């Protein structure tokens, strides 16, 4: 071995731990025997040292392809399923892509990439891959889930991506069965997939378009013990009434602000689970996880370095420096990711209240009400505390008087509360008036059946 030990995902897969599986709604694949198979039709060797685009629609095939390609290719760019096809040419150029691994090879014939390798389940016992040697530390490229335009490419190493997983150590009570509402080609989902692989566990994947009751039935059948999603994902599950009978040991929230209402809703629905909310972003990696059931995070986490992660608050936003942050944006003229001291500005605004920092919103998500800045998340947190509210979205609406005003769309816990709309509206407004400055109190509250959630599992704020 070289002085710095090289490791790849395949090093965590082997027949030693039996009964490991990865599944989606259609099939279950043994992870204990995966090293003996090639899902790339035995053509992995052609990817050695290359820059590879992993454009596999099927999440399960994509997962297994990752375990093969890691440690062999020079870099691997993960394509999320909702990637706008119009950006692909640009991304191929930016990342110097030389090969495409895909389950739809016909679509890539004219993409200007010479090497196209088809990925899919091997025909029974036809392809027997020889033992593959880990050759290098593959660069993991991911796309930011940002707003419009070409997504940015961020570069990670497996060591950085798994820093928080290694620091957390083994899951208690034996290997876990992990699940996530995220797609694993997104940072939040990839973290869970890597936890399953590195921790010797199994994984139940999400299935696009699947009804929530069917998904929960699979989670139960698969014996899922550890599961993660955004607060929006969790609110959706709580609203569906499908949670009964599902009893995970660990529930994790990330990707959006976990407010007190959703934390308490989850602890009522899953009394036996430990519930944690984690802070992570595609650029900054995993910052921390909080497991005390309260929103926000202890102020003591800011300042000193813990497990190699250092945080500071400057101009109101959280900044992170650690080995788990992405190394750089990839591409010509890519903006620099960190400041000169190595801190990444997350753009997430925090406010110190007593001994705890609370997330108040995104810097870019501020709405302007008569010249005063308002974070919609701050208003939503107050509305969501009402016992009959499941989720809400505050936004600005233009006004001929003040330029704009705050309005809120609210989803109630039990769908429609026939005849009680006015009463609930009054109560919500009273809560808002008691806890918020006058310009933050919604002028209009509208009850809606659902709120749009993006492919990345976050409340859609496109028109904010």
């Amino acid at each position, binding site marked *: 071995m070289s002085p710095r030990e090289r490791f790849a995902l395949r090093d965590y897969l082997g027949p030693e731990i039996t009964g490991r599986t990865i599944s989606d709604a259609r099939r279950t694949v043994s992870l204990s025997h995966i090293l003996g198979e090639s899902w790339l039709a035995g053509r992995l060797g052609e990817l050695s040292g290359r820059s590879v685009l992993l454009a596999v629609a099927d999440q399960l095939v994509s997962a297994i392809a990752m375990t093969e390609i890691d440690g062999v290719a020079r870099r691997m760019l993960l394509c999320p399923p909702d990637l706008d096809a119009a950006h692909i040419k640009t991304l191929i150029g930016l990342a110097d892509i030389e090969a495409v691994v895909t389950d739809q090879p016909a679509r890539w014939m004219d993409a200007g990439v010479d090497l196209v390798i088809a990925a899919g389940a091997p025909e029974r016992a036809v392809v027997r891959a020889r033992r593959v040697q880990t050759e290098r530390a593959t660069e993991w490229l991911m796309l930011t889930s940002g707003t419009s335009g070409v997504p940015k490419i961020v570069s990670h190493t497996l060591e950085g991506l798994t820093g928080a997983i290694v620091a957390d150590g083994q899951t208690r009570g034996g290997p876990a069965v992990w699940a996530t509402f995220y797609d694993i080609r997104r940072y939040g989902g990839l973290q869970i997939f890597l936890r399953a692989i590195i921790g010797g566990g199994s994984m139940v994947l999400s299935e696009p378009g699947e009804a929530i009751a069917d998904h929960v039935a699979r989670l139960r059948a698969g014996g899922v013990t550890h599961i993660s999603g955004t607060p929006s994902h969790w609110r959706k599950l709580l609203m569906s009434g499908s949670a009964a009978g599902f009893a995970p040991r660990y529930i994790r929230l990330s990707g959006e602000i976990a407010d007190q209402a959703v934390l308490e809703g989850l602890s009522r629905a899953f009394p036996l689970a430990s519930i944690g909310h984690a802070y992570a972003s595609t650029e900054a990696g995993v910052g921390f996880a909080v497991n005390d059931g309260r929103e926000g995070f202890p102020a003591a986490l800011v300042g000193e370095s813990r497990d190699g992660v250092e945080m500071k608050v400057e101009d109101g936003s959280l900044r992170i420096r650690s080995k788990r942050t992405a190394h750089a944006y990839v591409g010509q003229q890519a903006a620099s990711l960190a400041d000169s001291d190595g801190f990444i500005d997350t753009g997430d605004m925090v406010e110190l209240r007593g001994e705890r920092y609370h997330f108040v919103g995104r810097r870019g998500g501020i709405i302007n009400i*008569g010249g005063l800045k308002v974070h919609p998340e701050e208003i939503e947190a107050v509305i969501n505390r009402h016992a009959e509210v499941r989720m809400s979205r505050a936004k600005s*609406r*233009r*006004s*001929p*008087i*003040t330029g704009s*005003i705050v*309005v809120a769309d609210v989803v109630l816990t039990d769908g429609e509360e026939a005849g009680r709309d006015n009463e609930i509206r009054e109560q919500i*407004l009273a809560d808002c*008036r008691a806890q918020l400055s*006058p*310009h933050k109190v919604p*002028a*209009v509250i*509208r009850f809606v059946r659902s709120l749009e959630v993006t492919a990345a599992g976050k409340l859609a704020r496109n028109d904010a």
Partner: protein
Amino acid sequence: MSVRLRIIAAMRQIAEEQKVTLPPLGDDLSLHETGFDSLGFAILVARLEDDLGIDPFTIAEDVAFPLTVGDFIGAYENVPA
């Protein structure tokens, strides 16, 4: 309910929420004297837009914001529904 009555009802509702004591709402009362601040009027206009389907102050750029309660109600009554 007539447009006038709906406007008066909305004003009373907002006055209660904003802890404003409304004087008797005669047509000649200046809007300034109602005790509403600009936020109060912004809320009123937004709710009336939802209730009546019109916002007379945004439709035409040259509409001056009214000075009295009567002008305000008139702005809604004069918009073809």
